[in-house]
């Protein structure tokens, strides 16, 4: 209902079946893997003009994210945020979902691939299954539920989880009694709709696509393979993913925090970090899994919230790696507010404490004392890895993998695999969290878009919409269709009496009951009845509008009625299912619900969906790598782009960077990129330019810039903010006073310049977290640890005998960068953890530079006398950036821009048509900036390619006669949809920006704002109708 619908160019549906000429690229894309990355890539591609086949091995999409309880660092409910996306994918007209499917082979070349896919049988007819769940209720075979980490049971016929898409049951033939023993078929007997099909066969498909995106995802490490901790032996040692399920309200214990052995509430829980990660032992992986530190913090926080008593939580770690955006604050909260204990210690064993279900942990504390503690539960923070199946598939497809089986990619083309035309995203590329995966996914879509632009909209379809009958002015003629839902509703509620009572309601001219309202034959019948009875309002009393409203709305459209003249009464989920023991009262309640729906629908008016034309040009603000990559991608996708740069040069911070962590030459890349941008005819570059004024909004921005002393107005449909950030110039440690003290960037410049003096150094010291992770700047600058490691290695390369020290708080060489850290340690670089709480001084005495600090391991004051001191200084954005005001987008307390949603919309702003990438968003490495830049382009293209967009009709509008201009609507709207009219001074709401939440409506004291579809009179009508109930 609130989902934005995008209209493509009207394309003849027959085109899809047209024979495709040899050299023309194919306008469809295959995405393999239906986790959050695959879903995002599919949506971005389908929204920007490509037909998508989304191939998923399991029975439904959603991937690992659907198993999570909450997500860091906001503790958002994972299911709440992913389920609208699931529905969007499931319903998208240009996404074909192939579940239970596997790719066998890909032949051909970029632009023209042929993919062979095997679709395994579901044994349930998806057209007939209405997901009533009766089959599973009756199925006699219980099996471990892998969705709940094996902590609960499911049946042999099942859906993965209640919100699954597609919401269709599946028979698991490995466990089905009929398939194993040849007898049973109970599900078939009970299925009210004849959906079970034991004769279902696997299908072999051959699909033509222009490109392929691999979003194969990862799996958590299985600690039972080399069971050093006794994970398999003790039920109270669980993996972090199992713990997610324990925390989840829909999990095995209904969200009650109990330990598996005796279902008692634990009083002490320990988390062990780096299980299967940062570990070269057999079976484990050498890299850092990048997500576990933060998820352990999350789990500990949530466990404390779940616990009724005083839960003691301890996280045993090597380095705490909270390097992502706002993760450091999260860590601080965990320490300071939640009281989670952080213990730096590698735990080697978990001996059980006899008969108690507890486990003993021995460690050495900060003071060097040996400690023994018993814990009721131990959570193993397991890392992420690539499964054998995925690795095999990649190899079959000819994709180069790294030593850990992650897809090998270059830093400058982070989503491109080794085989042209095949792209990668998400945790298949490297261990990463949800936002990084989502950014990757959009980036892959962006790059695919740049390759297939010529074939955009060639294979997509648009819905044929029959002409709408104008019913305005007619008195309401309401039809009520009451669903029996087999026995789901009719088993409890007296359906004929509902029909009878509905017939007597005002304006109701027709009422009937249906066995299954959602079945195709009933849909056809409703269409016919609407026409015959000249119905102009429809109520379906059935299940939930959250899943079924769009379906019935389509029925209305097919009958020539505006789809907003529809209301559902949820008499199943909210009535028959929850009042099984009380059929009489349930029947009365169902009557009330129908009466309320009828009262509301009578007041509905046909709504039009606002359509807006999109100016086909983009403005990119910032001429650094992120801005240039965005601009390049946009032009490759055939959109003219303005590139605005404040200074007189392109290149941004990258001009001071030597090599990527993988050893690629940044200056070489940068000069190539600058040349490409400069010679690109579709990029208009404005150097030395600043913005003066911005008017308009998504689709039609008018940005006035000051360029070479002149004002110039740029018209564009979308805006991408890539305004970057800079390096902190420290004001201590003798920086600026002693030439031997430099920042990382200055040091990088010396490497770029091949400074011969570096070879003369005897001792070099790197200091980490200079200006980062401090109260004034409570964030991690993310890049510095790896950069210092890399630089330290460089020094060792230049002069192997040089003494190189890295003084750090936590080494954050996250992900695959851990290999570099290991290499650095083995090449003799000294990594010393300094005590941040104690004095750290730099002095120049008798010509010597003296660095004095407290060593955490030795627990005493140390001093080093280096010839060069390199300060890893923080990345600092511009606070109170005027762009925030100009484009109505927020900045956080640190000055980084705030995206629309940390997890699922990491490059969008809440304000439509404005996107963010690069350092302006958060500290990140060059490859991450490039990925986000490509993602920003992809997200922008979902608008640009649409040419025009239409949005939901349920939006707010202002009656100016009632408006008092108090500005409360303008102040509260998170989407900047209300604005004051320049002339009248009254508020008005831009319908294309409005999301229909109704916040302004409820906040407007003068009653000037109305929300179509949820207006005051409609809600009052429901309230009043309820009151007519007979109790």
């Amino acid at each position: 209902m609130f989902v934005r619908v995008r209209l493509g160019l009207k394309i003849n549906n027959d085109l899809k079946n047209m024979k495709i000429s040899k050299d023309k690229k194919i306008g469809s894309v295959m995405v393999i893997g239906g986790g959050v990355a695959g879903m995002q890539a599919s949506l971005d591609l389908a929204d920007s003009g490509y037909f998508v086949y989304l191939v998923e091995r399991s029975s439904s999409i959603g991937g690992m994210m659907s198993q999570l309880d909450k997500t860091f660092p906001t503790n958002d409910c994972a299911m709440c945020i992913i389920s609208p996306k699931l529905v969007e994918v499931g319903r998208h007209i240009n996404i074909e979902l192939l579940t239970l499917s596997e790719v066998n082979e890909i032949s051909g070349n970029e632009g023209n691939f042929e993919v062979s896919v095997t679709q395994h049988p579901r044994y349930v007819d998806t057209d007939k299954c209405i997901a009533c769940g009766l089959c599973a209720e009756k199925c006699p075979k219980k099996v471990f539920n892998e969705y709940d980490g094996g902590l609960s049971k499911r049946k042999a016929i099942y859906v993965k989880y209640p919100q699954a898409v597609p919401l269709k049951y599946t028979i698991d033939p490995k466990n089905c009694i009929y398939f194993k023993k040849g007898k049973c078929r109970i599900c078939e007997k009970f299925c009210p709709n004849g959906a079970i099909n034991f004769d279902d066969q696997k299908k072999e498909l051959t699909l033509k696509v222009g490109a392929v995106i691999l979003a194969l995802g990862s799996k958590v490490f299985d600690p039972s393979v080399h069971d050093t901790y006794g994970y398999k032996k003790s039920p109270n040692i669980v993996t972090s993913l199992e713990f997610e399920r324990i925390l989840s309200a829909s999990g095995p214990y209904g969200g009650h925090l109990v330990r598996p052995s005796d279902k008692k509430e634990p009083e002490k829980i320990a988390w062990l970090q780096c299980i299967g990660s940062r570990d070269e032992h057999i079976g484990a992986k050498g890299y850092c899994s990048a997500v576990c530190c933060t998820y352990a913090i999350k789990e500990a926080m949530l466990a404390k919230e779940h616990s009724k008593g005083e839960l003691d939580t301890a996280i045993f770690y090597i380095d705490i790696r909270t390097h992502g955006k706002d993760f450091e604050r999260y860590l601080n909260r965990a320490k300071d507010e939640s009281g989670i204990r952080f213990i730096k210690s590698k735990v080697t064993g978990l001996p059980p404490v006899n008969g108690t279900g507890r486990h003993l942990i021995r460690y050495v504390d900060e003071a060097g004392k040996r400690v023994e503690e018993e814990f009721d539960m131990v959570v193993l923070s397991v890392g992420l890895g690539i499964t054998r199946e995925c690795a095999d598939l990649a190899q079959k497809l000819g994709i180069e993998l790294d030593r850990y089986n992650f897809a090998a990619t270059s830093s400058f083309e982070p989503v491109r695999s080794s085989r042209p035309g095949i792209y990668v995203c998400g945790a298949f590329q490297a261990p990463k969290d949800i936002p990084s995966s989502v950014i990757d996914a959009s980036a892959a879509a962006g790059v695919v878009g740049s390759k297939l632009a010529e074939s955009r909209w060639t294979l997509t379809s648009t819905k044929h919409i029959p002409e709408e009958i104008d019913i305005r002015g007619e008195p309401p003629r309401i039809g009520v269709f009451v669903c029996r839902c087999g026995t789901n509703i009719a088993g409890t509620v007296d359906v004929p009496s509902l029909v009878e009572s509905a017939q007597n309601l005002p304006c109701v001219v027709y009422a009937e009951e249906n066995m299954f309202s959602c079945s195709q034959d009933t849909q056809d019948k409703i269409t016919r009845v609407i026409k015959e009875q000249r119905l102009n309002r429809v109520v379906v009393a059935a299940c939930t509008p959250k899943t079924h409203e769009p379906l019935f709305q389509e029925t209305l459209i097919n009958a020539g009625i505006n789809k907003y003249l529809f209301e559902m009464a949820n008499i199943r989920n909210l009535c028959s299912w929850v009042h099984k023991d009380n059929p009489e009262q349930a029947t009365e309640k169902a009557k009330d619900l129908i009466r309320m729906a009828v009262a509301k629908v009578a007041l509905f008016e046909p709504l039009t969906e606002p359509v807006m034309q999109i100016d086909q040009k983009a403005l990119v603000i910032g001429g650094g790598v992120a801005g240039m990559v965005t601009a390049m991608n946009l032009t490759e996708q055939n959109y003219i782009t303005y590139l605005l740069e404040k200074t007189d040069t392109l290149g941004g911070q990258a001009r001071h960077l030597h090599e990527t962590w993988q050893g690629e030459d940044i200056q070489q890349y940068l000069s190539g990129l600058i040349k490409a941008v400069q010679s690109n005819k579709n990029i208009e570059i404005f150097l030395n330019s600043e913005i003066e004024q911005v008017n308009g909004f998504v689709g039609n921005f008018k940005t006035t810039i000051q360029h070479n002393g002149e004002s110039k107005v740029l018209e564009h449909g979308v805006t991408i903010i890539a305004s970057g950030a800079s390096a902190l110039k420290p004001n201590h440690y003798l920086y600026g006073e002693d030439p031997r003290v430099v920042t990382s960037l200055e040091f990088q410049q010396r490497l770029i310049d091949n400074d011969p003096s570096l070879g003369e150094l005897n001792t070099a010291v790197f200091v980490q977290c200079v200006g980062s992770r401090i109260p004034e700047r409570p964030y991690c600058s993310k890049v510095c640890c790896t950069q210092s490691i890399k630089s330290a290695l460089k020094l060792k390369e230049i002069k192997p005998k040089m003494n190189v020290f890295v003084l750090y708080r936590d080494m954050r060489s996250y992900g695959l960068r851990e290999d570099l850290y290991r290499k650095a340690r083995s090449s003799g670089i000294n990594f010393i953890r300094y005590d941040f709480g104690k004095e750290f001084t730099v002095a120049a005495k008798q010509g010597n530079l003296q660095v004095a600090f407290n060593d955490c391991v030795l627990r005493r004051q140390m001093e080093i006398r280096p010839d060069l001191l390199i300060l890893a200084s923080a990345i600092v954005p511009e606070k109170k950036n005027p762009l925030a005001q100009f484009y109505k987008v927020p900045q956080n307390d640190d000055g980084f821009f705030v995206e629309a949603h940390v997890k699922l919309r990491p490059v969008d702003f809440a304000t439509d048509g404005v996107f963010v990438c690069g350092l302006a968003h958060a500290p990140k490495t060059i490859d991450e900036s490039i990925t986000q830049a490509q993602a920003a382009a992809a997200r922008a293209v979902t608008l640009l390619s649409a040419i025009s967009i239409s949005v939901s009709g349920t939006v707010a509008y202002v009656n100016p006669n009632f408006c008092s201009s108090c500005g409360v609507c303008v102040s509260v709207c998170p989407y900047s949809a209300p604005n004051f009219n320049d002339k009248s001074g009254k508020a008005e709401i831009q319908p294309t920006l409005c999301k229909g939440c109704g916040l302004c409506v409820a906040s407007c004291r003068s009653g000037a704002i109305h929300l179509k579809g949820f207006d005051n009179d409609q809600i009052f009508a429901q309230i009043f109708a309820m009151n007519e109930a007979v109790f």
Partner: protein
Amino acid sequence: MLRYITKIREISERLLKEGKVDMVIGFRKGTMPMMNEPCFINKPEGVDSLVWDSNCGINLANYLTDRKEKIAVIAKGCDSRNIVTHIIENKVKRDQLFIVGVPCKGMIDRHKIASMFEEEIIEVAEEGNIVIVKSAAFEKRLEKSEVLQENCAVCIHRNPVIYDELVAEPVKEQTETDRYKDVRRIEEMQVEEKNNFFDNLLSPCIRCYACRNACPLCYCPTCFVDESRPQWLGKSIDPIDIKTFHLLRAFHCAGRCTDCGACQRACPMGINVRIFTKKLEKDCFELYGWESGLSLEERPPLDTYKPDDPDLGI
């Protein structure tokens, strides 16, 4: 008082003469005792009718709503706070205004004084902290502190919070006041007691809307009581409709009310309607640390939020 009046006239005359403002909004002597009236002066020679004493309780911010001309306004502490709210809520622009700040020593409660005497009062005068009440038959001297308006007695912002010129040195703010004593008294009541209290309180209400009309915050073109789609609130003097009206009117003032007392002052039936808004004022202060009309930078508490706001949710 005389110094105040001289200064007010002097400033007003100057502003009008220099053409800095088109109009001065202030008080003139009313036809009834204790009832000074707002007046609009647009010529320098008119300034002599401007007065100031303890009967200037009407909130002049109410007369600024949606005005377009340049105005000098005489503002005591509460008026100035309502002017701030007016500016935030686009009812008037800061640069339209020349705010003549009056450090306020409190207004007297005409209902209270009237109820102290059976005869008709013909004149009320002031001498320092003494209020002299005259009827045809007698003359009585009262301590001003005894007859202050309730809101003035507990006021902690007597000095204007925003002004262009002050007519006198700021007065000492009251610090020892117990602002929410009356609210707490009700909070401590049992459910039935509360109902009885409010039923009794509102029983004289004739729904004349004088409270609403006197309130600078009630500037909506159409009040919710007149909503017709649907007419969910009855227009009668049914006690529930009356209670609902007062409740929702107060709620609309949540975090905006400065406790200027205009509503109570305006009520012909002498109902203490402030008791509704006072509860909200207390909650906004205690829950959100908010006092209305003190800052041009922040919008009222219902137009904003903090992630760690107190939570009544289950």
